[in-house]
């Protein structure tokens, strides 16, 4: 049968590609190899402000299991065809499922969606890459297990393995996801299967409870990289606390970010507030209320500060909105609540409790995320600008007030230059802040696409000059972001790549790593 196909992997002839596809079909079954252009749509890029052609794939292959992946690796090595593994492919603003380079075959791991084990006593889980947070949530509910996990905002459709491998974050006390992973299984380019940590030992029953094993800890090199295909991951689950008390504290002025951070940092480091606190700007909140931008600003250019003030007033939104929670017993939470009240009073913040938040969509989805309940509330952001385009610009900041104010002002100035609004939030680690800015643009408008690209580019380089690096990046900017981390790191990465994947077949270009 003649296939309808326009794209081939770089340097691969149509004849070799066809041979490879036939061999892949023999491994996973005809229906699990897609080359027809119209059926490849689920893998195409949506949130990258570059021409579609740059990230067009040649095919997708859907293996079901380690053994099939090992055989796929053999074919990829034989023909030197690069494969681009994705778990659920839903990290939208960071690039979704589209391959980093044109012509790569997307290796879609969604059929590997087994929850292999949940240990209710040790509060651990072992899952495959196709498992979604929603699936895990449903499993815990169905089995009446009082366990929570941390998930990112697009949680219902995203999955823990992909998010952890991409070093994503969530909003519970387990919000730094890679930190709360424990043990990986990885298929290497030569087909060997590596189990990290205690998993390397035969008959070990401590794979999901002790991270380190013996000798160098290898897990980190399989995150934000292309040194292997992660096929299983252990994760720690959190016992549902007897008392969960989420709250929001609203602050009236943009410059309040300095005192917010100074007040929260000690509470976070001391774990009085144990979760990954979010400090969300007015314009992150507004679309999720929902507020319509067009009611406050029409025409070109970024929305004015006056209009933002009016939104705050009309819709009872703070300039900054702090989301945090207390997780403990009633007694411990009562004691810590007094500290929260004192901090809010001392810094001019207005507390909104869960009881007072009833009916507010923006608050409810946040409170759900803080207990690991998946939802899609944050997708409201895509309505803000119209046209549904989004790239997440995500520099890291120290958890110091002056630093956060500086980053916010830098970003706002650059965004305004290109006519974009500052839609940002800070997610508080223990000592760092993930400053996530949603660069919202109209992806149906070529001029806005170009501006979005140029704006991100300027943000990236301006921040890098100040010593601010990205914690994660949109696929379209992988190479540029990697370059900001300097030549030595890149050289080491290249040497690792050469050692582990000499034919450069696993996602060359991901995170800027390639031979």
């Amino acid at each position, binding site marked *: 049968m003649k296939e309808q196909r326009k794209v081939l992997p770089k340097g691969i002839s149509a004849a070799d590609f066809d041979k490879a596809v036939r061999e892949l079909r023999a491994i996973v079954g005809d229906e699990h190899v897609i080359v027809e252009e*119209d059926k*490849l749509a689920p893998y195409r890029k949506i949130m990258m402000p570059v021409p579609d052609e740059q990230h067009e794939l040649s095919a997708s292959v859907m293996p079901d299991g380690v053994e099939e992946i090992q055989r796929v690796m053999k074919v990829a090595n034989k023909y030197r065809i690069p494969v681009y593994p994705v778990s659920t492919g839903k990290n939208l603003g960071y690039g979704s499922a589209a391959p980093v380079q044109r012509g790569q075959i997307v290796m879609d791991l969604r059929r590997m969606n087994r929850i292999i084990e949940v240990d209710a006593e040790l509060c651990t889980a072992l899952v495959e890459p196709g498992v979604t947070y929603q699936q895990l949530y449903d499993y815990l509910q169905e089995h009446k297990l009082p366990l929570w996990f941390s998930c990112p905002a697009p949680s219902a459709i995203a999955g823990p393995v992909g998010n952890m491998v991409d070093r994503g974050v969530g909003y519970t006390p387990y919000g730094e996801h890679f930190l709360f992973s424990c043990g990986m299984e990885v298929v290497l380019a030569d087909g060997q299967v590596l189990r990290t940590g205690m998993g390397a030992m035969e008959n070990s029953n401590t794979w999901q409870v002790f991270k380190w094993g013996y000798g160098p800890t290898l897990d980190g090199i399989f995150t934000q990289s292309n040194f292997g295909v992660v096929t299983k991951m252990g994760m720690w689950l959190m016992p549902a606390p007897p008392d969960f008390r989420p709250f929001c504290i609203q602050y009236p002025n943009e410059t309040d970010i300095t005192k917010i951070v100074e007040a929260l940092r000690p509470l976070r480091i001391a774990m009085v507030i144990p979760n990954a606190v979010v400090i969300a700007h007015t314009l992150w909140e507004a679309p999720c209320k929902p507020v319509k931008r067009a009611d406050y600003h029409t025409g070109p250019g970024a929305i004015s500060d006056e209009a933002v003030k009016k939104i705050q007033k009309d819709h009872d939104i703070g300039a900054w909105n702090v989301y945090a929670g207390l997780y403990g017993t009633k007694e411990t939470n009562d004691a810590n609540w007094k500290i929260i009240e004192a901090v809010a009073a001392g810094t001019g913040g207005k507390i909104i409790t869960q009881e007072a938040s009833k009916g507010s969509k923006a608050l409810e989805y946040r409170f759900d995320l803080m207990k690991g309940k998946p939802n899609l509330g944050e*997708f409201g*952001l*895509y309505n803000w600008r119209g*046209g*549904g385009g989004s790239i997440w610009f995500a520099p890291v900041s120290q958890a110091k007030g002056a630093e956060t104010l500086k980053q916010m002002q830098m970003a706002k100035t650059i965004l305004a230059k290109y006519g974009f609004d500052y839609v940002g939030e800070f997610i508080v680690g223990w000592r760092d802040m993930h400053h996530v800015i949603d660069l919202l643009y109209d992806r149906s408008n070529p001029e806005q696409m170009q501006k979005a690209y140029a704006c991100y580019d300027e943000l990236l380089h301006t921040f890098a000059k100040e010593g601010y690096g990205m914690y994660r990046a949109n696929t379209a900017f992988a190479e540029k972001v990697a370059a900001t981390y300097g030549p030595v790191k890149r050289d080491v990465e290249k040497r690792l790549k050469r050692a582990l994947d000499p034919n450069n077949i696993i996602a060359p270009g991901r995170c800027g790593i390639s031979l």
Partner: protein
Amino acid sequence: MDRRIFLKGLMGSGALGLLPVAAFARQAGAGEGAVTVVVQADLPRAQALAVGMADARGVTPLFVGPDELGSYGAVSALLDRAGRTSLIGVMDDAAAVIFQQIAASRGAGLVAHTQHRIGTESLVSFAINT
């Protein structure tokens, strides 16, 4: 075949139901099989678009609230209901991303995606083969 058709600018109400119908009928391979039309119930302009499309196909559109279109469970149920038919959706940008992504995770193919700017409103109509 272009994967996406982006239509921009002000569109007269008379044209709203006509152009997408023709485009989707062609792109979704419609005309033969059954089709389900889903429209966001709180958006009158989306309804105007969808009714035109549904009339052209002789079906009644499903009016779905924004909360349902933002819910994984509700969207999954709609896709279950659509079965193996073509599905046309008319909704805002956020709901369209959610719908398309949930459909994609079930293997459905997006065959057309049209952006509409009607005044200050931004709407999406799309067709998927479920």
